[in-house]
């Protein structure tokens, strides 16, 4: 019997790419399970000059735009920013004094925390990935370890999950499915905050607990670590719980620096 040539071609046409795809996936799985650091480090070696060039171009284009921007508007903006900076400086002076006092008191009471803070540059941000992760420029060489918390200002934003020699990957607390135990305001009630991606969180509390917009959400512990502020509260008559929506006060998409806290 004679078969049409077209039909024969169809069968082989699918099998070949399918085998090719499976071969690639098996090789990738081998590297993923047995040599992940080798691949990560090789990729970061290629990525770093590219990320550097990207940041340089971004910076240069921003300054070029500012040359053409309206001068008067820039002057007004400059003045208002200077005023804000002066106010912030005054507040910070107070804050520094309180911080010193807090540390002194803890020392007197025998509660000293030995931790090292490592400044890191953010190389890749959430808008570049689906994972709500950051890639930072410090790694094993700088003393970073898996599980180290990552801060931006006084706010804890994530945790180091993977470390290579010169780089680390940080999972943001707001990554979908991430669960963190937090304390809401002055209530003293610990509850679980669920990450919803893009710096957003959701938590559930009994309706009887009084919470208002702007309340601080923090981690329980001797060191004051903040998580966010209450943004929106949803209460219904029928429900026994209230749902609190909050977000990190830090804009993840413009984040340039973070601090990694390493316990010694």
């Amino acid at each position, binding site marked *: 019997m004679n078969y049409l040539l077209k039909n024969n071609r169809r069968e082989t046409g699918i099998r070949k790419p399918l085998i090719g795809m499976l071969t690639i996936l098996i090789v*990738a799985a081998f590297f993923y399970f047995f040599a992940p650091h080798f691949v990560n480090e090789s990729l970061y070696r290629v990525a770093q000059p590219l990320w550097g060039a990207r940041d340089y171009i971004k910076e240069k284009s921003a300054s070029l735009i500012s040359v053409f921007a309206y001068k008067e508007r820039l002057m007004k903006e400059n003045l208002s920013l200077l005023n804000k900076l002066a106010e912030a400086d005054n507040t910070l002076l107070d804050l520094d004094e309180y911080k010193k006092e807090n540390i002194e008191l803890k020392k007197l009471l025998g509660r000293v925390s030995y931790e090292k803070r490592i400044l890191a540059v953010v190389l890749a941000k959430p808008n570049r990935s689906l*994972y709500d992760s950051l890639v930072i420029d410090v790694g094993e060489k700088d003393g970073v370890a898996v599980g180290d918390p990552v801060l931006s200002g006084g706010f804890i934003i994530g945790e180091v999950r993977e470390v290579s020699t010169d780089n680390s990957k940080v999972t943001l607390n707001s990554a979908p*499915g991430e669960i963190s135990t937090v304390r809401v305001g002055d209530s003293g009630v610990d509850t679980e905050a669920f990450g919803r991606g893009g710096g957003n969180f959701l938590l559930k509390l009994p309706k009887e607990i009084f919470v208002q917009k702007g309340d601080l959400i923090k981690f329980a512990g001797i060191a004051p670590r903040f998580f966010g502020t209450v943004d929106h509260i949803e209460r219904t008559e029928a429900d026994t719980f209230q749902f609190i929506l909050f977000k990190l006060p830090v804009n993840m998409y413009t984040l340039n620096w973070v601090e990694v806290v390493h316990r010694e």
Partner: protein
Amino acid sequence: MNTRIILDILLFVAVFIVPPWLVLLVASLCLFLFKDFYEIIFLGIIMDFLFGVPTQFFVLPVIYTLLASIIFLIRISLRNHLTF
């Protein structure tokens, strides 16, 4: 052939500086321009190695590899029904 190599290089560089969804979109278009564009799977793997971190939601961070493989599978299964 030369066009394919140039596009491969451009896509590889784009992985580092362009949002992943855009890279996958362009690579998906390439699937229709070139025969067996395996590069899309490589790009997915690179993106997972670069940005993927295990979370409580994605235990194995292979989301881009999975997406690229699905797109590749759809393309090869459609091959016989589409003519270009």
